[in-house]
C-alpha cells in the first residue's frame, strides 16, 4: 500500500455550461497534509465532490492504479476514499459506538448484519481512542458538542479504512482549543494516509499544512509550501483587500 498517492489530471466539472472546475491537476502523496484553499466559488468543494462521485467530471483522478472519477459514490468509498462535509453529518439518534460500527461495516455480509453486535470491533476501539471519545461511546451522537461531532466523523473515516481523507472545512465553527486539537489529530492520522483539507481558516492552515494548493476560478493558481504560496504575488492578488490585511478569509 505504501507509495499510493492521489493523482488528479485535468479534472473538469461543468454545470450547464458553467465551468466550476477547469482542468485541475495535482498530486498528493501519502503523509502529506495538503490544504486546499481559495476564495469562495474557486471550486474546492466541487473538486471534492467530483473525486467522491457526487458530481460527474472529466479528466482523471486515480488512487493507486484505480480510476475514481464517475464511479458510484459507495463504490468509491469502498475503494478507500472517505470524506466529511461542511456541516457535521453524523447519525444523531445512534450512539457514538453505533456510528463508528456502521462506518466499519460496509463489507459485512447479510448474516452479520442480521445479528446483534457481540463485541466491539478492534478498529472501532482504536478509533475511539484516537479521536478521544472513548468515554462518550454510549452517548447519542446528537448530544455531542460541535467539535466532537467533527471528530466522530473523522473517526468514522478511520474505521471505514479510508486511505484518502477529504475533509471539507473540518474546523469551521470550532473554538481555538478545538482547532488545535483537530490539527494535532490530523497530523497523527495523516502520517499513514493521504489527507486533503479544504479550509478557509488561514491561521489553521499556517499551523498545520505541509503543502498548500490555491484554487482560483476552477484552476490551480499556486502550489507549494505555506511560505512559497504566501510569497506568490498571484495569490496575494487574489486575496488582496480581503485576506492580506486580516490574515483570514471568511465566507
Amino acid at each position, binding site marked *: 500500500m505504501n507509495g499510493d498517492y492521489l493523482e488528479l489530471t485535468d479534472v473538469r466539472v461543468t454545470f450547464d455550461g458553467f465551468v466550476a472546475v477547469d482542468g485541475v491537476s495535482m498530486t498528493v502523496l501519502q503523509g502529506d497534509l495538503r490544504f486546499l484553499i481559495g476564495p469562495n466559488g474557486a471550486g474546492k468543494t466541487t473538486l471534492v465532490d467530483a473525486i467522491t462521485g457526487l458530481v460527474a467530471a472529466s479528466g482523471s483522478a486515480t488512487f493507486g492504479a484505480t480510476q475514481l472519477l464517475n464511479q458510484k459514490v459507495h463504490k468509491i468509498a469502498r475503494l478507500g476514499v472517505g470524506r466529511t462535509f461542511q456541516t457535521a*453529518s453524523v447519525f444523531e439518534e*445512534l450512539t457514538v459506538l453505533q*456510528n463508528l460500527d456502521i462506518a*466499519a461495516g*460496509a463489507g*459485512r455480509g447479510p448474516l452479520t448484519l442480521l*445479528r446483534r453486535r457481540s463485541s466491539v470491533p478492534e478498529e472501532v476501539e482504536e478509533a475511539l481512542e484516537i479521536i478521544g471519545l472513548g468515554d462518550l461511546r454510549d452517548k447519542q451522537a446528537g448530544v455531542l458538542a460541535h467539535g466532537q461531532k467533527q471528530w466522530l466523523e473523522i473517526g468514522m473515516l478511520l474505521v471505514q479504512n479510508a486511505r484518502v481523507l477529504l475533509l471539507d472545512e473540518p474546523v469551521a465553527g470550532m473554538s481555538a482549543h478545538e482547532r488545535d486539537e483537530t490539527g494535532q489529530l490530523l497530523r497523527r492520522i495523516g502520517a499513514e494516509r493521504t489527507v486533503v483539507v479544504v479550509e478557509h481558516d488561514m491561521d489553521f492552515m499556517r499551523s498545520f499544512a505541509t503543502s498548500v494548493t490555491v484554487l482560483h476560478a476552477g484552476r490551480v493558481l499556486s502550489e507549494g509550501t505555506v511560505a512559497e504560496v504566501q510569497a506568490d504575488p498571484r495569490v496575494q492578488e487574489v486575496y488582496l483587500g480581503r485576506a492580506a490585511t486580516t490574515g483570514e478569509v471568511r465566507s
Partner: protein
Amino acid sequence: MTTLKDKTESAAPQARVRRKSELPTAIGFIALGLALLVLAPAVLSDFRLALLGRFVCYAIVAVGIGLAWGRGGMLTLGQGVFFGLGAYVMAMHLKLADAGADGVPDFMKLYGSGEVPGWWEPFRSPIVTVVAIVAVPALVAFGLGAAIFRRRVRGAYFAILSQALAAAFAILLVGQQATIGGTNGLNGFKSFFGFNLYDPVNKRMLFYIASATLLLMVLVVWQLYRSRYGELLIAVRDQEERVRFLGYDPANVKIVAYVVAAAMAGIAGALFVPIVGIISPASVGVVPSIAFLIGVAIGGRSTLFGPVVGAIAVAWAQTSLSESFPSFWTYFQGAMFVLVVAFLPRGFAGVGALFNRRKETA
C-alpha cells in the same frame, strides 16, 4: 479493502458492549401473548373474537409499516397492494377448493365463460398457495423497491407513488369481473384447508393462527431492530447520503425493509380472507391503505409495540364508536390523527419515552 469486516471481533473484550436491558421488551411481548392467546378467547364472545381476529390482521400489516416507515423512513401509503396480493392468492385457493366436481368456482359460471383461467390453476395446490402468499408480495415489492429506491425517489414522492399504486391496483381488480370477481371480490368461502369455516371451533382456531402469526412477526421485527441492520436502517432513514459515503448502497438497505413489510402485509391479507369471509377491491385500495397507517402513527411508528397496540386500538375504537355513534367516528379519527401528529410525533409510545428521558437527565 473490505477484508476488515469480522476478523477482529472475536478478540475484543466482551464487557465493552453495553446493551439496553431487554427485559421490558420481553415483558411486553409476554403480556401481548397472554392478552391475545389467553385473555381474549376467555372473555370475548365468538362474534367479538372474530372481530379481534380481523384487527390482528391489521396489526400484522402495522408491524411491517412500523419497520418500513418508523425505522426506514419510507412512508408507504400503498400497503393495500401487498395486503390484497396475499388476500387474493388465498381467496383464489379457497374458491378452487370449494368448487364442485367440475373444479370451476361459482362466480365464474355466473359472470365468466365457465372456464378457469390458466393463471388460477397453480393455486389449486395448497403448497403453492402458502408459498405465493409470501413470495408474490415480496417479489412485487422487490421489483418496485429496486426501481424506486435506486432512482433515489423518496419522501413525499415515494408516498404519492405508493398511494397511486394502491389506487391503480384497486381499479385493476374492479375491472376483472369474470376472473377475480370485480367489485364483489371473492367471497362465500366454505372451507379453509379442509376445515369447515362455519364451525365455531375452526373460527377460534383461525383467531389463534392469526394471533400466533402476529407474535411471530413481532419477534422478526424485534430481531431486526436490535441487529446491526436495524442500526443501519436508522442511519439510512436519517442521513441517506452519508451512508452512501461510508460504502453502502442505501437502496439495498431500504429494499430489505420494504420487502419484509410487504411480505407481512401479504400474510395479513391471507389470514384476513378466512376470518372475514370476503376480499374485495374496497379492502385494498387507497382508503384502507391509509387506515393501516393511522394506527401505526397513533401507537408510535418507531417502537416495537406501538404499531400493534395502535392498530388494534384504533380498529376497536372505530367499531365500538361507529356502533354507538355511526356518524361520529370519522370526526373522532380525524381529531385523533391531528392531535397525535401535532403533539405526539412519536405516537402514544412516545409519552413513555418522554418520561424515561426525564428520569435519565434528573
